[in-house]
Structure formats: structure tokens, C-alpha cells
């Protein structure tokens, strides 16, 4: 099976979340997956532009999607934000004729882009193409005894009708992943609640309160550590300074540890 | 000259025949032309679906005229040929969903029979878009109206049907 994918890192992964990027590439390589970074990709915009009359904001995503199509590959991203935006825009290109026509008129691709590319989150790739069983076999340094909670946040799950990532109210992909790397996944109810997102710029107190509730629930449910796939969630969780704070890591870092990829190789 | 004489005068017939063969009918008389569409509906599902569209006041164009048949399998290909001969611009046949036929198997026959008939008609120049089979259940009033709107729109875009039409029947 050819495990070559187009890869959309996203801007945060090039700067503040280099760990997420580097661990993703290294773990992918270790699992026999080739991630080919798209040439000259541009920022997806961070939030999906909801306005059905705004096409300009969606063009960066369309360009990335079309690039993957031209290479005949699925498009993989590991950042929750990018995943959300790319997949929502792709849905527009597939199902909303007005947006599709306008975006294509503007972009002037060789042939019109009609949502052909399949957008995958790295976790989906691990689950469906690599297989959690393979990871279980290759995890030579399993995280045995680690009680880890998955923090999904919003952008990975909602709106579920479009993202089709997992059950939006009772997700389990990350738990299955954690189980594969040998850890003990702990389900807690607040794992799909919002961390406050971009409001932390203006109202850090407010986001702190939300994050506090999440940590409290995670801790009382027995988590010793949280993992996430979203740099913004990671930032908000990290900034929390209340009593229930738990260590937070990216999913790919956990995977790297299990595969024995040397920690610290990534540039901090 | 009476109207009948006018219609049947050699000149008039010739002119209309020319029009028909040149396929020019679409362009010239577009202003006043409204398509003629026959919808055969099975009594149990689609006719009830059409009634439901009425109950829900879901409108569709008046040029759709429904003929009730007990089952879509009752529709003889000859009826459809006759419709085109008599100047129909489109014919749609509606029946119960496969598996739901009130008579168990009628719509399976319809499905196979019409596939053959429609490709023969296509070969004869009656485009595929002018003929259609659609499954509409008794609960799908909205689907019935939507299908009819879509079909009428399609027929309008295809213009007047001049193939197979016996212009002596035109009035």
C-alpha cells in the first residue's frame, strides 16, 4: 500500500508548535508514511469563514486542496484548526455550487476543483491507513501505566455532519490511539468542551475559567496528563495556572515516545 | 377558409413539416410555447404522493398532467410512444420504490422495460432528458413536487419535441 500523502502543516506548526510538526513527520517516517509538504501553502485562516457570501477567505484552503488533487493524494494535517477549515471548505467546494463556481473562476485551475480531495487528520491516517494494531506492535516503549486523558476540543469534532471525524458527544479515536501506544486512556465528560479559543487574547480570565473546569473534570476522572492535537487548545491549557493543572502534550509527541523517537530531537 | 381547412392546407402542412424537420420550433415559437408533459402515476404510491404534494400545497407547473394507472407496470410502451406522437414534450413515469410495489414486482418490470424503451427513443432522437422514471412513495409529496419542477425545467431547456410527433395531431 502506498502511504504517500500531501501534508499541510499550517502556520502555527512552523513557529510556536514546532514540536507538533516535527514529531508528526518523524513518527510518520517511522511508520512508513511519506508526508509531502505542499509547495507554497498559505495559512488556512485559523477559523472557517462561515459567511456563505465570502469566498476570498476560503481560497488559500482551496489552493491546498487542489494541489493535493493534482498530485492524486489525500491531504493530511495534524492541526485541529487546519483540519476543521480545510474540511469545511472542501465540503463547500463539493456541495455549494455558488462558492464552488466563484472560487474556481477566481483560481483558474487547469480543471475546476470540485471537492475531490479527501482531507484526513493525522489520527485518521494512523487509524485507517497505518492501523492502531501496527502502532501497538511497533510501540517498543509503550506508555504503560500512564493515565492519559484526550482533550478533543471543538474544531476536531464539530460540526460533525461535515467533519465526520468521530461521535461529537462521545468521541473515542484518541482514546483508541492512547490504548495503542500502551497508555491507559481515561474518558472524562468535558473532553469535547471549548477551552475558550481565541478569546484568551481579550479575556484571559474567562478562558482560564473554562480551562479550569476541563482540568477539574479530567483530574477527578483520574487523568494524570492530557493530550491534544490543537495548538490553540495547547496554549490555553498551558497558560492555566489553577490548582488542577495537568501536564499537556501533543498527540504526536506521545506517539514519538512510544516509538522510541528520541525526545528533544525536535527544536523547541 | 375554416380553421380546419387552414390547418390542413398543403402549404400549412408543408410549413409545419419543415419546421419540424429543421428543428426550428424551439426558436420561433418560444414566446407562447409551454411544454406538454404527461406523468403516469401508479395509484398506490406516486398518485398518493401527488395528492400529498397537493395537501402540502407544494406547487409544480400546470403543464404536468397526471394519468392514473394501477401500477407503473401497467404503462405499455405504446402509451409513451402515443404521447410523443400526440405532441408530448416529455413523459415521466412514477411508481413505488423498488421493493415497495403494491403488486410486489410491477415496478421491477417497469425499470427494465423503460431502460430499453428510453434508449430506443434516444436512438430515434427523443433525448434521454425527455423521458424519466422516478420512484415516489405515498409519503414523498415534497419529492413529487420537486421532481416535477425539475423535470418541467429540463423539458423547457430542451425545447419543443419535434421527433416522433405526428404533426397532423398538432393543434
Amino acid at each position, binding site marked *: 500500500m502506498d502511504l504517500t500523502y500531501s501534508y499541510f502543516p*499550517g*502556520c*502555527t506548526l512552523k*513557529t*510556536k*508548535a514546532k514540536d507538533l510538526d516535527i514529531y508528526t513527520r518523524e513518527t510518520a517516517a517511522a511508520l512508513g508514511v511519506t508526508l509531502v509538504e505542499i509547495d507554497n501553502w498559505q*495559512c488556512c*485562516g*485559523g*477559523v472557517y*469563514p*462561515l*459567511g*456563505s*457570501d*465570502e469566498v476570498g*477567505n476560503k481560497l488559500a484552503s482551496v489552493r491546498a486542496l487542489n494541489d493535493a488533487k493534482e498530485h492524486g493524494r489525500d491531504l493530511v494535517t495534524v*492541526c485541529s*484548526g487546519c483540519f476543521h477549515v480545510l474540511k469545511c471548505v472542501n465540503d463547500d467546494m463539493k456541495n455549494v455550487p455558488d462558492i464552488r463556481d466563484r472560487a474556481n473562476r477566481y483560481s483558474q485551475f487547469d480543471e475546476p476543483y470540485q471537492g475531490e480531495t479527501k482531507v484526513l487528520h493525522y489520527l485518521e491516517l494512523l487509524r485507517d491507513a497505518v492501523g492502531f494494531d501496527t502502532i501497538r506492535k511497533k510501540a517498543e516503549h509503550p506508555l504503560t501505566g500512564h493515565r492519559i486523558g484526550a482533550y478533543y476540543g*471543538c474544531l476536531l*469534532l*464539530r*460540526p*460533525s455532519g461535515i467533519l465526520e471525524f468521530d461521535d*461529537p*458527544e462521545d468521541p473515542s479515536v484518541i482514546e483508541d490511539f492512547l490504548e495503542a501506544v500502551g497508555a491507559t486512556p481515561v474518558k472524562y465528560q468535558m473532553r469535547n*468542551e*471549548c477551552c*475558550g*479559543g*481565541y*478569546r*484568551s*487574547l*481579550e*479575556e484571559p480570565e*474567562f478562558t482560564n475559567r*473554562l480551562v479550569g473546569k476541563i482540568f477539574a473534570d479530567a483530574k477527578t476522572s483520574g487523568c494524570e496528563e492530557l493530550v491534544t492535537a*490543537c*495548538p*490553540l487548545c*495547547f*496554549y490555553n491549557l*498551558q*497558560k492555566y495556572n489553577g490548582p488542577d493543572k495537568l501536564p499537556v502534550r501533543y498527540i504526536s509527541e506521545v506517539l514519538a515516545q512510544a516509538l522510541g523517537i528520541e525526545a528533544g530531537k525536535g527544536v523547541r | 377558409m375554416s380553421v380546419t381547412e387552414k390547418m390542413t392546407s398543403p402549404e400549412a402542412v408543408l410549413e409545419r413539416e419543415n419546421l419540424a424537420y429543421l428543428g426550428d420550433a424551439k426558436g420561433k415559437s418560444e414566446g407562447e410555447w409551454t411544454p406538454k408533459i404527461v406523468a403516469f402515476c401508479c395509484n398506490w404510491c406516486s398518485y398518493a404522493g401527488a395528492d400529498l404534494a397537493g395537501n402540502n400545497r407544494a406547487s409544480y407547473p400546470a403543464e404536468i398532467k397526471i394519468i392514473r394507472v394501477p401500477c407503473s407496470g401497467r404503462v405499455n410502451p405504446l402509451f409513451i410512444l402515443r404521447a410523443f406522437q400526440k405532441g408530448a414534450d416529455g413523459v415521466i413515469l412514477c411508481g413505488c420504490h423498488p421493493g415497495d410495489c403494491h403488486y410486489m414486482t410491477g415496478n421491477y418490470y417497469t425499470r427494465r422495460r423503460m431502460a430499453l424503451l428510453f434508449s430506443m427513443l434516444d436512438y430515434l432522437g427523443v433525448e434521454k432528458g425527455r423521458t424519466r422514471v422516478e420512484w415516489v412513495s405515498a409519503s414523498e409529496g415534497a419529492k413529487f413536487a420537486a421532481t416535477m419542477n425539475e423535470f418541467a425545467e429540463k423539458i423547457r431547456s430542451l425545447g419543443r419535441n419535434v421527433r416522433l410527433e405526428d404533426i397532423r395531431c398538432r393543434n
Partner: protein
Amino acid sequence: MTIEEANIREEVLLICGCDVTRCMKCGKCSASCPAYDEFDIKPHQFASYIARGDMYELMQSKTIWNCLGCFACVERCPRDVRPGKLIDGVRQAAVRRRGGTHLQPEDIPSRIDPDTPQQLLMSVLRRERK
């Protein structure tokens, strides 16, 4: 409802593509909202406000700036009204009319720290200015 408000309403409904008449006032959106207490006009009220055309009030509300865009209400709305999209529609209408931002660019440098991810800044920019 003034003519201008009617126009804004038209625009908002176009932007979000939602049908406010489907709302059955169940309150699931408000109950799911993590920022409920930060709102002056609550998520479940948006459908009624828009139906009535009280667009000025909506555009001046704190809600449109405090919404997190977390999609919890969109996900859980049993009637497919998707209040989050309504709020975003009003916010965009407001942004387009003022032509500026809620947070001014000069407000931002003092608020960031060395770890602030680009994603955050992009989100703020995208959401709060045209």
C-alpha cells in the same frame, strides 16, 4: 423593524443560510454555550430577535464578540437552526458596516506573549475585522 434593519436581516440570513422559523425555543443552544454568562443577548434569543428584525440591538450586543465559535450549539441544535451561525452572521454584518475591528490593531501587542500561537492571532483577525 426599519427598512435598514430589514436589509440587514436579509443579509444576515444570506450569510448564515439558516432558517430561524424552525426554532422551537428549547434552549439547548444556551444550555450548551460555554460563554453564556458573557452574553447580554443569549443564543436562544437570536432566532426570535432576527425573526422580529431587531437587528440594531443584535449588532450592538456583546454576544457577537464574545461568542467562541465552538459550534456546540450548532452541533446540538435539534431543529438545525444553528444559532452559532446566526451569531456569526450578525457579527459579520456588524463588521462590514463599521468597516473596522472590535479589537483595534494597537490593542494587540500588549496582549500577546512569546507562546501566543499564530492560530490565535489569525482567528482574532479573521473574526473581528473585515
